[in-house]
């Protein structure tokens, strides 16, 4: 550094002054708190599952009463969903529906009764164009970047616009405090309170910890899930080699739950 010339010296001086003054004034103006906020304090778990758009394929041929029961039981147990028998007040995240009711637009006069009365597992369709999200006045229900239509129970005011908006009846309103209707509570998951709307959340809490949705896990292969935006995913492979239908697709909500018949 002994043979430093005038030009070099001025350069170093300039850079030094810039960093010194600039750095200091940044500290003064922006403040410590804001600088700390830039540091990433919240992170996704490394094991979390990622997708552009999550989707599910339910194979109706593989469904049987045991699998249907296992799926609803597992889902409702881990999410502390209350078991209220009165159909006007019941809460359901995933449930059994007759084919003719799940797919009313496909109902035909001469449809075979086996098909008409076939059991179908129905749940929130996690639509690409979800009407419930559009009508929610508090953004309590919103679409995550990975396509999951989520509920933020902290923000729900119980207006039930989303229930009116959802064409699938996938949402339930808590008419009473659900606590007394849950026998064996899962201490790792919260309850909801009286006056909020709830529904399937695609097991976001499991996805974010690297686990598949609970219904997929216990379905014995009848339900598969994956990233529908990824051409190599399992759901895309199944959809490209099978005929699949979606519930009320003509409404334009673009459901993410497909059914193989």
């Amino acid at each position, binding site marked *: 550094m002994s043979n430093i010339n005038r030009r070099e010296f001025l350069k170093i001086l300039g850079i030094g002054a810039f960093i010194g003054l600039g750095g200091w004034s940044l500290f003064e103006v922006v403040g410590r708190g804001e600088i700390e906020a830039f540091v*990433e*304090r*919240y*992170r*996704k*778990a490394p094991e*979390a599952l990622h997708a552009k758009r999550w989707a599910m394929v339910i194979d109706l041929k593989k469904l049987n009463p045991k699998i249907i029961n296992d799926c609803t039981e597992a889902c409702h147990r881990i999410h*502390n969903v209350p078991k209220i028998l009165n159909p006007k007040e019941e809460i359901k995240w995933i449930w059994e529906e007759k084919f003719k009711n799940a797919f009313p637009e496909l109902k035909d006069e001469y449809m075979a009764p086996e098909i008409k009365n076939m059991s179908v597992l129905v749940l929130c369709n996690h639509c690409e164009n979800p009407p419930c999200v559009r009508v929610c006045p508090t953004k309590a229900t*919103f679409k*995550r*970047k*990975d396509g999951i239509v*989520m509920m*933020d*129970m*902290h923000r729900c005011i119980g207006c039930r616009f989303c229930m009116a908006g959802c064409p699938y009846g996938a949402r339930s309103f808590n008419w009473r405090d659900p606590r007394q209707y849950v026998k064996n*509570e899962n*201490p*790792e*998951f*919260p*309850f*909801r*309170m009286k006056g909020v709307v709830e529904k399937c959340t695609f097991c*976001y809490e499991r*996805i*974010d*910890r690297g686990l598949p949705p609970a219904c997929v896990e216990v379905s014995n292969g009848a339900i598969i899930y994956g990233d529908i935006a990824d051409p190599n995913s399992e759901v895309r492979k199944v959809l490209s080699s099978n005929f699949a239908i979606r519930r009320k697709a003509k409404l334009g909500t673009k459901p993410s739950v497909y059914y193989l018949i």
Partner: protein
Amino acid sequence: MLYDGGKIVFGLLIFIVFVTLPFTLSIGKEYYKPKVEINTPQIMKLPEAERKCVESKEFMRREHMKMLIDWRDAVVREGKTLYVNSQGKTFNMSLQNTCMHCHSNKSKFCDECHNYVKVKPYCWDCHIEPKENIKKEAGL
């Protein structure tokens, strides 16, 4: 000279005595202070050097309510479940599974101060509080 000076001074004296009554009456008496207990089995199990909350005691006292709101937004709205604290240590962000795992004594930890300052957070409308062996206090 003050008109009716005696009466005015006497009245003022009565006023001062009356106003300071809450202070004079409590002289010598013990003040009620919230007694927060942090000696739960889960905390005592940890080696002494690791008996620390996610941030410093002072920070938690001052900011825990803000922190819980930020945690909630990060987990529910952004799907981020891990918190990196000022020491670079990572924690799972969960009131039910992280905070209350150590502070399993809600009635002697949360409620002690919240009752003292008369605030009623609505966390427990939905979140499940740890099972305590002590009976719930009436009215809670």
